[in-house]
């Protein structure tokens, strides 16, 4: 496979994943602002930080309002992580690697792009938001479904999956890192209703507010939330789950190519660490430091994969 194709697949799936993540973040933000109207600005501040575009927002807007924040996250082309930017980038990459995709997968992303362009052509009204968020989730879900149902399990599949999970791990870690302070024992000892809203918002940002109840007590506890998002191997957006997938896809590539790269060592070491560390231990040593380390290590892994498999534009 061309190094350019592998790179295109990797980024195509990173962008599709990011499209969905941006939509989910907006969803969580909307939910929070419904629950407590007086501090909407703080909430959107957190959402923009989680999306990694807080600074960029200030370059484009004077003040922080929920309407502007939503528009920025949804349809501003000046924001490379906005839904419209991501789906356009994803589709451009898909167009470039068209020959590596099944017709079903290509059509799913092309149709997603066509529909997004339509519904995001104008600034969205608040009343339209549930419908828009739903459409984004449904469309990206269709891409995933077509991809899983029709793609050959070969290197194309592996590079695509690796892109998905590097992006997802980054996203989950960022969400946690922006809100880490509400999970710290000193502050959360009381478990006020404000904390509850914050905690639920974290879970909602990764679509885990229901599944949490199935795995832990119904009651929200910071340590459990951190455990769920970091170490629980059954939770599809947890760091541990993402790394299991990265490691297994890299292992397929190693077998097919008959060689291992630095990326293999890095991914396996990280997974081992995610499995062996207890949450209590991580929190003791500093959740923020842990997450910062993780994010930079995750970036490094992306670079090692790119080097090992000779990616280029």
């Amino acid at each position: 496979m061309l190094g350019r194709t592998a790179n295109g697949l990797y980024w195509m799936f990173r962008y599709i994943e990011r499209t969905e993540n941006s939509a989910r973040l907006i969803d969580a933000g909307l939910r929070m602002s419904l629950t407590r109207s007086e501090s909407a600005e703080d909430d959107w501040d957190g959402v923009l930080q989680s999306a990694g575009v807080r600074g960029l927002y200030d370059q484009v807007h004077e003040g922080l309002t929920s309407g502007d924040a939503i528009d920025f996250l949804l349809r501003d082309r000046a924001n490379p992580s906005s839904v419209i930017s991501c789906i356009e980038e994803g589709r451009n990459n898909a167009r470039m690697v068209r020959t590596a995709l099944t017709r079903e997968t290509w059509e799913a992303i092309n149709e997603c792009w066509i529909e997004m362009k339509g519904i995001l052509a104008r600034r969205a009204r608040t009343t339209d938001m549930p419908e828009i968020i739903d459409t984004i989730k449904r469309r990206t879900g269709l891409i995933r479904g077509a991809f899983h149902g029709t793609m050959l399990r070969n290197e194309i599949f592996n590079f695509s999956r690796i892109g998905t999970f590097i992006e997802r791990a980054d996203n989950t870690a960022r969400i946690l890192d922006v809100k880490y302070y509400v999970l710290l024992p000193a502050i959360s000892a009381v478990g006020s209703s404000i904390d509850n809203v914050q905690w639920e918002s974290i879970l909602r940002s990764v679509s885990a507010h229901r599944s949490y109840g199935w795995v832990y007590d119904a009651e929200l506890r910071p340590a459990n939330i951190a455990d769920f998002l970091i170490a629980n191997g059954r939770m599809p957006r947890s760091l541990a789950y993402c790394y299991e997938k990265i490691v297994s896809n890299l292992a397929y590539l190693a077998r097919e190519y008959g060689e291992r790269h630095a990326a293999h060592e890095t991914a396996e070491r990280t997974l081992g660490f995610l499995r062996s560390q207890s949450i209590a231990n991580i929190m003791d040593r500093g959740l923020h430091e842990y997450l910062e380390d993780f994010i930079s290590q995750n970036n490094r892994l992306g670079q090692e994969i790119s080097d090992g498999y000779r990616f280029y534009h």
Partner: protein
Amino acid sequence: MIDADGSPRQPYSTYHQWYSNQDRNRLIAKSKEAEKIFRKTGITFAVYGHADSSEKLIPFDLIPRIISGREWRRLAQGIEQRVLALNAFLDDIYHKQEIIRAGRIPRGLIEKNDTFLPQMIGFRPPGGVYTHVVGTDIVRTGENQFYVLEDNARTPSGVSYMLENRETMMQMFPELFHQNRVRPVENYPYLLRQSLSSLAPAGCNGKPRVAVLTPGIYNSAFYEHAFLADMMGVELVQGSDLRVIDGKVKMRTTRGYEAIDVLYRRVDDNFLDPLTFRSDSALGIPGIMDVYRAGNVTIANAPGTGISDDKAIYSYMPEIIEFYTGRKPLLENVPTWRCSEPDSLKYVLEHLAELVVKEVHGSGGYGMLVGPTATKKERVVFAEKLKSRPGNYIAQPTLSLSTVPIMVKKGIAPRHVDLRPYVLVSDKVQIIPGGLTRVALKEGSLVVNSSQGGGTKDTWVLED
């Protein structure tokens, strides 16, 4: 579809019966559905020079153009004769030049032509094949009267539309394919790959590695390049993916550099090799011509085939065919005035209102004058251009092109069409039974190019 006496023409009889029983609203809905299918599949092209040029659809008309088996056999024989003559001509022009020595074609016409590549002199591509893929443009003017408009021996495009139009028709109207015995075109990508592989360089051992070379995603025909690579199951590459290493053309893969044996290029000669041709080309591969001449890669179509389908050469096609096949051409050439010849120029200037004047090197319907539909002012302006560079133009009479029915708001109406069948050349000549029918959607218009508002329709060759 309908004869002068009101009865359907023979190949259309089954279709006509079906059509008469259709609910019009259903057909209109189907027409919209077709558009949706094209859009979601991404079968789009870019029009150069349009502000919103990103992606456009070519309008699709859902009434098929139907050709009987008998009609097709005649056409196919004529096309085969022509394609064999083209290859013989190219081989001669780049070797002994007997046709020039025999005084049948002026030397200057060949050697001063930009499409003639001195780099090809004395080189014979694998299998002696120069034009691996040809798209012969044909028009019909009467029941048994066909003319060849152009030979398209460089990189003919549009074959993806032939395939997608058929696919769409089968999806929308499966019943039609039970009622009519339509010859299949779907195996084209398979035949293309087979044909390309069979002409791999002599030094290639094992399964030849084939790739399609595209200028990139911003090229107007990118969809087609990706589509063909996908359907053939081969790599789609651009110049920046390739490099000449150790006398081979290699592509940058996830495992390192790997050799390519056959390159089906959709990049023009000029851009192929910046070391040999245009040095500012970013689309090409520096040094590929050396590899080619050393016999380590096959380029399809061969560089320099443009000399055979050049509009200035076109008027000599009857002589060319006779010279190499020893027989009269089976398909007619449109009578052509070469404006480089003073007598012809005089005639053309006097009869501008009746003629179509084309640039010798133009394509895509740009830079031409359609006399009968042009305004007086347009003709005057064009006459000046003609006088200042006569050698740049040829002129042809406007033919009374046959029409086929298309769906319009008020029902069906006749429109002018042409036909481009696709031909694969290896150790044999294979003509795909069908092709691309382009249709001028504007009433009375003779210009069928997609860049000028033309549409397409499915083309059926019946089994009979």
